[in-house]
């Protein structure tokens, strides 16, 4: 069943007199529970696509439907609720709150999400039970990204959106994070969308959407996606 539908979506940025189309008439649908990779070079428009889907930005034209609801017409507060309940984000640079501990960073989402999961359990699942009371600055990059995954999943969202989640990590840690991300997404039955320029990650996806110059070049379904261990990094 299609959970996400992009219908002729265009996003134009205006800087001074200069107009730039980051997305140009993009249409596609995504099914629930799939692992989707959006692949493309820098400046292709893949992050814009993710931001629109995440409710961080609004399209200049076209409609984005999530769960049958058009999110391109939502007010600020409705968008905030959408972000709180429907989507979870994992960023390249983790974006943890530096003044809160690991536990507090994850527990934070219980303030806004009605269906949040137990923070301690999520931290345990990402293997950081020993670091509950550490601050982000006391953790390695991989550990911080694990906290970020725990936080995203603790909201119990339908869709997990990840923007270059391994971009700031060495390859070994990157693989470990991907394994964790996919494993948890699967066990919690989440749709996962990863934006990356890394071809290797794409090999693990159910669906690969290739983007270039703001347009979708191809949407490819893989019958037999590889596991992280099978992929050559």
């Amino acid at each position, binding site marked *: 069943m299609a959970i996400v539908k992009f219908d002729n979506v265009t996003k134009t940025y205006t800087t001074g007199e200069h107009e730039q189309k980051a997305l140009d008439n993009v249409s596609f649908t995504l099914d629930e529970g799939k692992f989707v990779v959006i692949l493309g070079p820098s400046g292709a428009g893949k*992050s814009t696509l993710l931001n629109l889907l*995440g409710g961080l930005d609004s399209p200049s034209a076209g409609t984005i439907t999530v769960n049958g609801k058009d999110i391109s017409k939502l007010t*600020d507060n409705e968008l*905030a609720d959408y972000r*709180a309940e429907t989507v979870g984000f994992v960023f390249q640079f983790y974006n*943890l709150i*530096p*003044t809160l501990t690991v536990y507090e960073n994850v*527990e934070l989402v219980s303030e806004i999400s009605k269906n949040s999961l137990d923070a301690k359990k999520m931290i345990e699942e990402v293997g950081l039970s020993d670091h509950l009371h550490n601050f982000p*600055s006391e953790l390695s990059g991989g550990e911080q990204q694990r906290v970020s995954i725990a936080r995203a999943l603790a909201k119990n969202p339908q869709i997990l959106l990840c923007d270059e989640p391994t971009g700031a990590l060495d390859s070994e840690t990157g693989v470990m994070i991907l394994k964790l991300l996919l494993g948890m997404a699967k066990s919690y039955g989440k749709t996962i969308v990863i934006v990356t320029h890394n071809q290797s990650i794409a090999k693990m996806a159910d669906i690969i959407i290739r983007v270039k110059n703001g347009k979708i070049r191809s949407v490819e379904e893989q019958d037999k996606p590889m596991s992280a261990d099978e992929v050559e990094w």
Partner: protein
Amino acid sequence: MLIRKLFRTAWSYKAQFISMIIMITLGMGIFLGFNMEWYTIEYDTSKFFSDTNYADYRLYSTDGFTSDDLDKIQSIDGVKASTRYISVNLDIKDSENKSLALDVSENYTVSTFIVTDGEKYDENSDGFWLSDKFAAANHISVGDNLTLEFQGTEISGKIAGLIKSGEHMICVADNNQLMPDYNTFGYAYISPEKFKSVIREKAEKTYAETMKKLGVPEIIIEEKMKNLQYDEMLDKAYVQINLISDMEKETLEDAVKEKLGRTIMVTSKNEHLVYKEAMGEADEGKTMGSVLPVLFLAIAVLTMVTTMHRIAAKEKLQIGTLKALGFKNRRILRHYTSYGLFIGIVGTALGTVLGFIVCGAIMSEDGMMGTYFDMPDWTSVIPVFCYPVMAGTIVFLTLISFLSVHQQLKGTAADTLRPYTPKKMKKTLFERTKIWDKLHFGTKWNIRDLSRHKSRSAMTLFGIVGCMVLMVGGLGMRDTMAGFLELLDKDISNYSVKVNLVDNADTIKAKSLADELKGDWESLSGISLDGETVSLDIIHNPNALMNVIDENNARIALSDEGVYLCLRLKEKAQIGENISFSPYGSSKTYTVKVIGYNRSMMTESVTMSDTLADKLGIDYHITSVYTDKNIGDIPSLNIISGKQNQKQLMDTFNSFVSIMDSMVFILVIAAVILGIVVLYNLGIMSYVERSRELATLKVLGFRNKNIGRLLISQNIWLTVIGVIIGLPSGVGVLEWLLAALAGEYELKLMLGPMTYCVSVLLTFGVSLLVGMMVARKNRKIDMVEALKMSE
């Protein structure tokens, strides 16, 4: 090229740059304005005093001074100029309650005046030289007629000129009037020749009346009058010698005693109301200038330290880029240091302009002091010590920039190019407690943010405390002054009219007048107590129309067993101890027991009952009678020199309070602006530094309202702490100010509930307003932009 960068960078940090310039402008403006105010008083008044030959000393003798006496005084080594002088308060004929101080300077070398319109001074003239302010208030012009009532006779003449005199720069009828009221009281000079003719006329009239009563035929009276001697009467009328001299008071006293062979009451200009009040105002300004404006400047400069440091930290990448491009450290330093120099110069220049505006608002003819002082020149002058402060501020601000950038330049270009890394977080003891776990996320977040950015938090707190101190100080000063006047109005003065008597009024006549008016009376005279001139206040107040009050403002029923010292003389003697004093013009010394302390509002005085004065055998003259009769019911007697309505007296006090109000208004407005600027500047800084965290919260699904509440609650927390510290600090500063002002008035700290409410509410209002201004910015935060860069 780098200059272009300076302006562009300034533009990109416009909120910070503008707020830093506003703060320096405000700080410098208030500092300069308040300090210029007192210095301008000193400067302008001393010029006026010098132009009008203001007397350094005044010699008083109830028996008057002869020409011989004057010659002897003039012959004292060290006396530069001297004149016989008289100043007496007289009613204007056919006017409703208007009176003038009529002055004569016999040889016109001391206590002279400046003519602003009409004829020059002429020692033979038959006219009056009238105060130009009184003339303006009463629509009197040069050439108009004026008639004064003088002890049963009249003095008439045309207005020869309009003048200003140093002797009456603060034109009040007596010590009990705080502010001039030119509608009802002014001053005038006549020539010694005219005065002579007035005395002759009075002598002839008195002689003729006496002779007529004895039944002497009119022809004989007229014949005898041709040879009537009135010199003695004239000598008796000149009860004052005014002189200019640099001598010490004691030396002069001794010299006068030696020359004249009797003790004469000598008062220095420090004891003369005009000089004393003018210098008192200057001292008051000096005291104010040394606390509140300094606090202002300090807050401004310290906020600048924090802001500059943050800007330098934010410019780290740019500094690194310039370094990597091959710019030498010296050049980069010079470039960034010029930011501080730029802010310093612009802020100080604008501050100087503001200083002149603030000073002008207080010390100018149309300003607040314009109703108090009557002088020709109002030139605002910057005190010399302010120049190094101005230069020092510019240098200091430049140094702040220099040091902030110097810190960023340490290490290699690559080091500098690495982004600013915040300090590592560590848990405090409080965070390890169970209470901490129970706190709301927002509270934890705010507490950690405050402890992580200590200098920013401290500066914000400092700004709030400063704002609070300024408000409590300003409003409290007003409360105290208002309380002081209420005390004077309600507890001390229950009379409706004060009848002033002529010098040396006949005591029997005066007492019978008091009886007739069912009034209380008072005799004020100068005494020497431990070498200091204070007042002896002999009081007869069975009707409680004019009260003596104790420390707790309760009425004292005067005992006949001893004297009361005013609180300012408390250190002179304990209760039960004896004091010795001698009245001026008398060689006698009296020793009496101190039996209590009283609150004397204006004068430093020793108070006793008339019964005790009689028992001790003190020779006194009644100076005022207080009655609750109407002014029209008071008979015209030659012992009466003037009548004053209590309401009128209080009105003059009220205009004094309105001056105070304006100063307080300036302070409170400045405090609010300062509060807004400091808090907004630091709030924006805090917002920019936390923009990534705020964007994260937004991405997670926090609504704008929730994030706004977080930002505002931090401000509110700091405000609560700031108010807790600021309130007692404000009271402390006020107490210190009052102690410093105690020489002039006996003020008791009073703070009304409104002052507490207004100060606290305004401070919270400012904090909330700024919190909301910052929180509004959060709505526009670009989540995508804010989350792009690495930490």
